[in-house]
């Protein structure tokens, strides 16, 4: 048993640190470290820098632009990015769509779309959830009807993250309304969001931010060549896509960074004239979450090492998703508690580019409650924690 990094892993980490310290633009680092909202330009500039380096799609097969990193190396990369304030590339194009195109798309689609994903030039959104199809995703109703060499799409998607910037959206649509099972009538299709009939409407979430959207489709004409794989096989591709997120699923890098900033905040706050971090009751909450994260980090590494040896992590990835989201939420919750009264002034855009109001409290305090509220989402998206528990109990109890 050897719990520290191997020499090769340590030297990989050094390479990552060198690259990040040389290449990460100061303004992006600043926004990321302080927990602000990144602009579209910031996302795309960083994505392009990674693309030029050949590091924007590390987990793809090498012939399509992957780096050949092992799962442990990828986890090191993920963690160092958070530690050094580098944003993570959005998952929609790189982690979700890319692998589907590589495995199930045709050569034309790969030639047409993979370069724009690697460079970040094309902004992709995900069109899965609908108002009536959340955890029960297969009950989705958006219809695509074949009409000559086109599909005509009608319906509505929702919770579309950063869809306001989207050039393209990959969607699950119903192509066979009479299929025996809801899962068997679904197709996976790529829609240009600049087509007539596509309308994006903002959803403002309880933290005051505009992150998610509704996307409406009214008689949208989509060329038949934009169908990925076979018609009515979309559910298979979607399941493949959702399994592809295992490696970063526990959010270790992000939570470690949040722990550091929580401690910083609790050192600056005072209680009875002493730093809050020295207060017994606060410190015991802090220690509990720190220990949970320490355990999670090791549990995650155990899974990565097994994955590296080609073993199926089975229910462990769902476990990591559940506990990882709980730890992350707890950290944000404690940051809000640590902020005290100055968690209360509602300044959702505080510190973002273009915001010029006078700040009440510190920036960390101002962002603490919005972050707490915003991160309620992480136990809901990507298969809610209840869905994950269902997956685990099916595997381990048979129910």
């Amino acid at each position, binding site marked *: *048993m*050897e*719990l*520290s*990094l*191997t020499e090769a*892993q340590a030297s990989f980490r050094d390479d990552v640190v060198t690259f990040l310290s040389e290449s990460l633009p100061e303004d992006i680092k600043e926004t990321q470290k302080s927990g602000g909202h990144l602009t579209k330009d910031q996302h795309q500039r960083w994505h392009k820098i990674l693309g030029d380096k050949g590091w924007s799609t590390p987990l793809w097969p090498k012939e399509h632009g992957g780096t050949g990193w092992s799962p*442990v190396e990828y986890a090191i990369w993920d963690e160092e990015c958070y530690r050094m304030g580098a944003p993570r590339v959005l998952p929609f194009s790189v982690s979700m769509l890319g692998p589907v195109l590589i495995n199930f798309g045709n050569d034309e689609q790969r030639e047409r779309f993979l370069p724009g994903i690697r460079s970040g030039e094309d902004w992709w959104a995900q069109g899965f959830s609908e108002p009536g199809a959340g955890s029960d995703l297969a009950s989705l109703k958006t219809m695509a009807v074949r009409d000559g060499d086109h599909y005509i799409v009608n319906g509505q998607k929702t919770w579309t993250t950063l869809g306001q910037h989207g050039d393209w959206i990959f969607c699950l649509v119903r192509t066979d309304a009479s299929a025996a099972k809801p899962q068997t009538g679904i197709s996976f299709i790529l829609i240009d969001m600049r087509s007539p009939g596509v309308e994006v409407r903002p959803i403002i979430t309880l933290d005051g931010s505009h992150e998610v959207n509704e996307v409406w489709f009214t008689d949208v004409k989509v060329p038949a060549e934009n169908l990925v794989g076979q018609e009515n096989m979309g559910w298979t591709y979607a399941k493949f896509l959702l399994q592809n997120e295992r490696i970063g699923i526990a959010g270790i890098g992000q939570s470690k960074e949040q722990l550091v900033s929580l401690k910083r905040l609790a050192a600056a706050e005072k209680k009875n004239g002493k730093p809050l971090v020295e207060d*017994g009751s606060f*410190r*015991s909450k*802090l*220690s*509990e979450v*720190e*220990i*949970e994260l*320490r*355990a*999670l980090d*090791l*549990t995650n*590494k*155990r899974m990565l*090492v097994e994955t590296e040896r080609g073993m199926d992590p089975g*229910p*462990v990835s769902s*476990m990591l998703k*559940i*506990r990882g989201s709980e730890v992350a939420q707890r950290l944000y919750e404690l940051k809000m508690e640590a902020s005290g009264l100055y968690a209360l002034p509602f300044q959702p855009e505080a510190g973002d580019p273009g915001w010029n109001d006078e700040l009440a409290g510190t920036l960390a305090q101002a962002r603490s409650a919005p972050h707490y509220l915003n991160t309620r989402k992480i136990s809901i998206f990507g298969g809610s924690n*209840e869905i994950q*528990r*269902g997956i*685990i*109990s099916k595997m*381990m*109890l*048979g*129910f």
Partner: protein
Amino acid sequence: MNFDYSEEQKMLVQSLERTLAKSYDFETYRGQLAEKASHDPALWASLAELGIMAMPLPEAAGGFDGDHTDIALISTELGRRLVPEPYVSNVVVAAYILNAVGGDSAADDLAAIGVGEKRFAAAFYEPGERHNPLAMNTKAEKSGDGWTLNGHKAVVLGADTAGAFIVSADAGGATLFLVPADADGVTVRTYQLLDGRGAADIIFDNVTLDASALLGEAGSAEDIILAAVDRGAAALVADSLGAIEEVIEMTKDYLRTRTQFGRPIGSFQVLAHRMVDLLIDYEQAKSMSMEASVEATNDDSAARKKAISAAKAKVGAVSRKFGKDSIQMHGGIGMTDEYALGAYVKRLLVNETLFGDTDYHLERFGAL
């Protein structure tokens, strides 16, 4: 980075499993409890024969120079089988101290532990001092060439079957003495703990000790005591892991087979999800136990303390949850003495509380 045990370690565990499967089942355990015995000389001898006592000892003492991952694997099996034998108090805690203080007589005693011939118990904790291993109300005063010892040690694990005690006392700072159990002025009040393991309160009333009773140097035992307790804590954490694994098997089995309202109760989501949360906690506890077994012997004492406290606090909290939830999910049968679940719940409670409880370690973790 790897989380593997060596082939030798796997073989050792297999032979321990085989021995226990042959000679120690739940009925044996119940029988031993009925007779108020925490120790069976025949079982102890067969465990010594397997080499699990000699495993962590230095080669000079006839040992195999094993590390704490060996101890963790052995402890996990002992916990899984509810074995009450004083393994941790002797092979982990006493052996570490005897080796650390050195000297000829300590070397002989170490060798005797390795073959299962002598038993010791380390007495640190005191009434009214809760989980402080550096409690110093026990005093040793110089008298002539030797010492006079007065004090009271609380809930000393393994003291019911030990021939001698390793006692911490204030002699111008933390100091360790080796005190024969039958010395004049020593009163040993033995009892069994909740789960059947043996312990005792020990009272020292003007006990006269030779100069040779001093272990190491007077006033300098603090680091040794803390390191010994941490090793004991790491072993108990591993012991709990074995008990938890057994509780998981029993509870999963019960959820699958017990039917109410015409269906297995595990098919009710409220129970299935509760079980899933326990399974996640188990994985977390396992990770911490592994880390504790690696860090227990770390020379960097701050790193050691941090890892041990994290593990003891985490596994302690998880153990409590397992105890409560597994009984609840079993319903009435979980309340009975003849069903093994309760024995595991009690084993977990004892492990959770000895060598620093969850609060103690949470506090120490936060202060580091």
